[in-house]
Structures are given as structure tokens and as C-alpha cells.
């Protein structure tokens, strides 16, 4: 993680985002560091509440009160975005234009009272200073690119005229409209049917290639990242617990949480009679967490040291493969 790669496009250092609530401070993102290379597909994996979405919203500076980005750096093209005012023109020039985001709910992320064309051309007029006519032409082109049939007709339709899959295509077209360098897709297909999911993911992969952008896929679905990502970050309780190439993460997982996840999901190609091994217990409450490893209560690899010392930093176990764990999980791999 620390080696300075020439093609590093985004580098996040020690990002901390917290939410003040009545019952205490929720450390949603608690010291997250990662990087994205040019034209790379990266997976960010974790269960609900692990901070994967909040970390991405923090990169975009889309955190509202009671949430607050408390510390860290988001270096994009050599500049720390967190030094920009969240509502200032500099951040606006990046958000949506250079770093674009797609959300899970295509239903709620489109404005129901504006036509698709109005919503898509807004970005072009705003960021690229296009004329209305030029924008309309470009919108039709973009809609065609993301696979919306009869774009010339459908451009004047409203969101309710579109199916869920088509709405998500609109969102992707919108995200791509300003030629972003990074596309962040937060559970982009979770609300959709399986065959539609496959269509959209395949299309997104083609699009980021075509636009020479990088893609961050935020998901709980290990299958999706196994199929599309080159590198993966596994998050738990606001921190990254393991990172590495996709083949390392799945081929020789080293963090007990990652290992547990792989053993508890049913696989389409599994042998008959395979027993799932659940991860016992529950994800921790992120208020008032002890300094020790947050996975400790559920861990089957724990050693004495885990109870005494604070949660370790990410340490290298192999080339480009890092884990945050004291136990020597590499010894007896199963």
C-alpha cells in the first residue's frame, strides 16, 4: 500500500468520519487508507454498517451533519480534496465531473418531475458549459452508449416511464457525461434482478474501459468483485482489514474475517452437502468501541495478544497483500 505508484490516481490517507448521535460518537470510518490506480477496477467489500459507503461519500465530501470528516487526506491528482470547502466551486468542479458516483437506488436518485433529458443535460451545461442543443445531442449519444433503446424518443420521458434497470442506465450515463476519471458505484445493482445485474455490470466494465476511467465497486457481494475487480479492500467496523489482488484475497485470504466470509456464503458450484460455517455473533456497535480488534469477539483465530494490544495497522503478508491481524493465519490454511 505504501509504495508510490506512478499511476496512482486517488490516494486516501487515514480518513476518519464520525457521526455525533445522542448515544455517542459513531466512528463510521476510522482511519481508512487506500489508493486507486488509473484505469483500475477496485472492489470495496463489507457488510452493512462497515463504513464502505460513508468512506466513499467522504471522498466526495457529501457528508451532512451530524456526520463530519474529522481527519485524513483525499489526494486526487496531487491535491488534497479535503482542503476544499465542501460547497465551494473547486469541490463542485471535481464532484460529479471528475469523480462521479452511482447509488443503489435508481428510484430515489432521479428527480421525478424532470425529464431524463433535463437531468442528463444539466451536468453538461453546468460542468462543460455546453449549449442546450449540443447537450441534448450528447445526451442522446450517452443514452445510446449505456444501452437505452430509442434514445431520441426516450429523452423526453420521465423517470417513472423507465424500469429499474433502465433508470440505473440513466444514472450511469449521467455519471459518465463529464468524462470522469473515477466512477464510484455504491451497490449499483443490488436492487435489480440477476440478469439485469449482469447486463449492467458488464456494460459498466466496458464503459470505464472506453472512458479510460477507474471504477470503485462498493458491494457486499463477493461474487461481483471476484468477477470484475483487479484489487479488493475488505472493510469491517470502519477499517480496512485486508487488501490485495483479487486472486490473493480469494486464493489465499489471510484475515480471519475474510476467511470467515468465504466460508459462510453458498457457492453456485459447491459440492453437494457442503456445510456453511457462519461467523458467530454480530457486527459491533460502532459507539465506544474498545481499542482492540473489532472482530475479536467473533474471531476463531484470536490469540492472547489480541486482547492486550490495540488493533494493529495493515501489515504486509505478501507482495501487495496486507492484513490487520496479529494471528498467524498463514500457518494452517484450509
Amino acid at each position: 500500500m505504501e509504495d508510490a505508484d506512478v499511476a496512482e490516481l486517488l490516494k486516501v490517507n487515514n480518513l476518519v468520519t464520525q457521526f455525533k448521535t445522542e448515544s455517542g460518537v459513531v466512528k463510521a470510518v476510522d482511519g481508512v487508507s487506500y489508493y486507486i490506480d488509473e484505469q483500475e477496477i477496485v472492489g470495496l467489500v463489507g457488510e452493512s454498517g462497515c463504513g464502505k459507503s460513508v468512506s466513499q461519500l467522504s471522498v466526495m465530501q457529501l457528508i451532512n451533519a451530524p456526520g463530519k470528516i474529522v481527519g485524513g487526506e483525499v489526494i486526487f491528482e496531487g491535491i488534497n480534496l479535503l482542503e476544499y470547502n465542501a460547497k465551494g466551486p473547486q469541490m463542485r468542479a471535481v464532484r460529479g465531473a471528475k469523480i462521479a458516483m452511482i447509488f443503489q437506488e435508481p428510484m430515489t436518485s432521479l428527480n421525478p418531475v424532470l425529464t431524463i433529458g433535463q437531468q442528463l443535460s444539466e451536468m453538461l451545461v453546468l460542468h462543460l458549459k455546453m449549449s442546450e442543443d449540443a447537450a441534448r445531442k450528447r445526451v442522446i449519444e450517452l443514452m445510446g452508449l449505456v444501452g437505452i433503446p430509442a434514445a431520441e424518443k426516450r429523452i423526453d420521458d420521465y423517470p417513472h416511464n423507465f424500469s429499474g434497470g433502465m433508470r440505473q442506465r440513466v444514472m450511469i450515463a449521467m455519471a459518465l457525461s463529464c468524462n470522469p476519471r473515477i466512477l464510484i458505484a455504491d451497490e449499483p445493482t443490488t436492487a435489480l434482478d440477476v440478469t439485469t445485474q449482469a447486463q449492467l455490470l458488464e456494460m459498466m466494465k466496458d464503459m470505464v474501459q472506453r472512458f479510460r476511467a477507474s471504477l470503485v465497486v462498493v458491494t457486499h457481494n463477493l461474487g461481483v468483485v471476484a468477477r470484475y475487480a483487479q484489487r479488493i479492500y475488505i472493510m469491517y467496523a470502519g477499517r480496512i482489514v485486508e487488501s490485495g489482488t483479487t486472486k490473493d484475497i480469494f486464493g489465499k485470504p489471510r484475515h480471519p474475517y475474510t476467511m470467515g466470509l468465504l466460508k459462510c456464503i453458498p457457492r453456485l458450484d459447491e459440492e453437494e452437502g457442503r456445510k456453511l460455517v457462519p461467523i458467530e455473533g454480530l457486527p459491533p456497535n460502532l459507539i465506544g468501541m474498545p481499542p482492540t480488534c473489532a472482530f475479536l469477539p467473533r474471531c476463531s483465530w484470536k490469540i492472547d495478544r489480541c486482547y492486550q494490544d490495540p488493533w494493529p495497522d495493515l501489515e504486509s503478508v505478501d507482495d501487495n497483500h496486507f492484513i490487520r491481524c496479529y494471528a498467524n493465519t498463514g500457518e494452517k490454511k484450509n
Partner: protein
Amino acid sequence: MNDTQNEAILNISELKMYFPVVRGLLRRKVADVKAVDGVSFKLMRNETLGLVGESGCGKTTVGRCVLGLYKPTAGRIIFEGQDITALPEKRMRQIRSKIALIFQDPYSSLDPRQSAGSIVGEALRIHNLVGSKSDYNGRIEQLFRLVGLDPSMTNRFPHEFSGGQRQRIGVARALASDPALIVCDEPISALDVSIQAQIINLLEELQERVQGLSYLFIAHDLSVVRHISDRVAVMYLGHIMEICKSRELYDNPLHPYTRALLSAIPIADPFVEETRERIILKGEVPSPLNPPPGCPFHPRCFMAIPECSQTNPPLHTVTEGHEVACIRVL
């Protein structure tokens, strides 16, 4: 499916469930939504049959017809040898103690104002299944233990439980009346990955422990369905396209839709993913209000020939226990 050596607990033949679309002041019927359009299958005692398909394929409607929550438009549902298709509500109530349901959302399916014990015991009270108060409490404690909950928690309310624990309450409630069949409608899709396995294992263990318990397991996640089911029926637009043993489904899928569905599901293993067949279907599932003529899948099918738009093929047996509805598969 034609084997009769085992006892079928549920036998569904040519089930159709149409929902009328009405319009205007006179509420004249203008069309039908053909949610289920000629579905037949048998479920054996102690067996788990998975019903899988994308949204709108009719899988939930089949489950609701089995529970008697919908009166089918046509077809027959035989449960334990008795035709329950058109039973009057009073008689159906008695039957329903033998058919239980586990819901998808453990948050909205539990009454927030009832204690967990009272939720689990509701069926016992309604069906008068226990004689005394102490029997009632004993049975509830037993059910709590059976699903892995501490019996001291009977007085707590749903909001005091986590999602996984709530689904355990849902399972305990389903078991309360000693059912022979449990319809599980997406029982784990609202849960987190690490919790899903706990519920899947619980359902599997219960089937080993409770004599003769059968599941009709309805879900969209084929990996989960295949894991828990003995046999799987793949549905598309109100029809069963393929039905076979779970193992066969991955090793030897025959229907083009099944093949596309399988290939659309990524496996959490990049080494396997490298070599997998990938079929990306065109378009989206058509509306059941206006299904295409002939085989419902033919407009999206990569194997379609002109005849496919003319006849809707019935299921035919390819090998023993493996049935497919496709004229391109012989």
C-alpha cells in the same frame, strides 16, 4: 417427478393465478396479469423444493396460493391428499396450522407491540393447540431453544433483537403449530451475509430434527436456493422452465434461461470466473400483463427459432427427474 414411491405432501397441477386489471366506474375487467400460468410440481415429504426466478416470475404467488391466501383462477392444490384449492375459509384455517410461512423481512413481519413469546405463541392460541398455561409456556421455551434463542428472552420485544435473531423468532413462530410444510419466502435476503449462513444452517438442522418437515423455499438467489434445496424449479413469467435435482442444475442446465441465469450469477472465486460461460441476455423481463406469444422466454432467447413464438412448450422429461420446457432441448 413421476415417481410415486415417496409420498407427495404437496401436489400442484396446472395452477393458474390471474389478477384482473379493472378500469373505469363499472370496474370492467380489461386485462389479466397472468402471475402464474400453468404451474405443476410435487413436493415430497421431508424434501426441500426451491422456487427460483426474477421478480415478477410468480414464485411468491405460487407460495401464497399454497397458503390459501389467494384463490387460484384454475388448477388444483392437493395437500396431504386433500384438495385445498377451494376450501371455505373455516376449513382452510384448520389446514393452515399445517402449512406455515416464514417472511422475507424480519423487521416488518413481527408485531412491534407484542413480546417475542407472544408472537411465537399466537398460532398455539389461535389453533388451541395447548391445554394449560404451563404447557403453553413450556412449548414456547422449547421453540425458543429449538431455533437457538435463549428462553429467557420471551418477554422482550422485537426491537430488542438483531435482524438474525428476529428471523429466528419468525422461524419459531412458523414451527409453533407443528407444520408439515413451511413456505419460506425469501427468508434470508434481508439479512447480512455473515448472518444469512446462521439462518440457512438453522433451517437445515430443523429439517433433520423435525420429522417429515418439508420446505417450499422461494428466493431469487440461486446460490442459496441450490444450497438448501433437494430439487429446484426455475420460473420465468409464470411458468416453470426447468425442474431438476439441485446438483444437476449447475452441472447440466438445459433450458437456455437457466443457463443465462446461472451465468449471470458471479461465483466468489476469480479462478473459476475466468473460465465460465457468460451469457448476457438482451432486454428485460416482459410484463406479465402482456406476455409474448409462444414460449415466454423466446424474445430474449439466444437459441430461439421461429417455432418458439408459436407454441408454449410444456415441461417434458429429458432424463429421470429432469424436466425442461423448451423445444430446442430434446
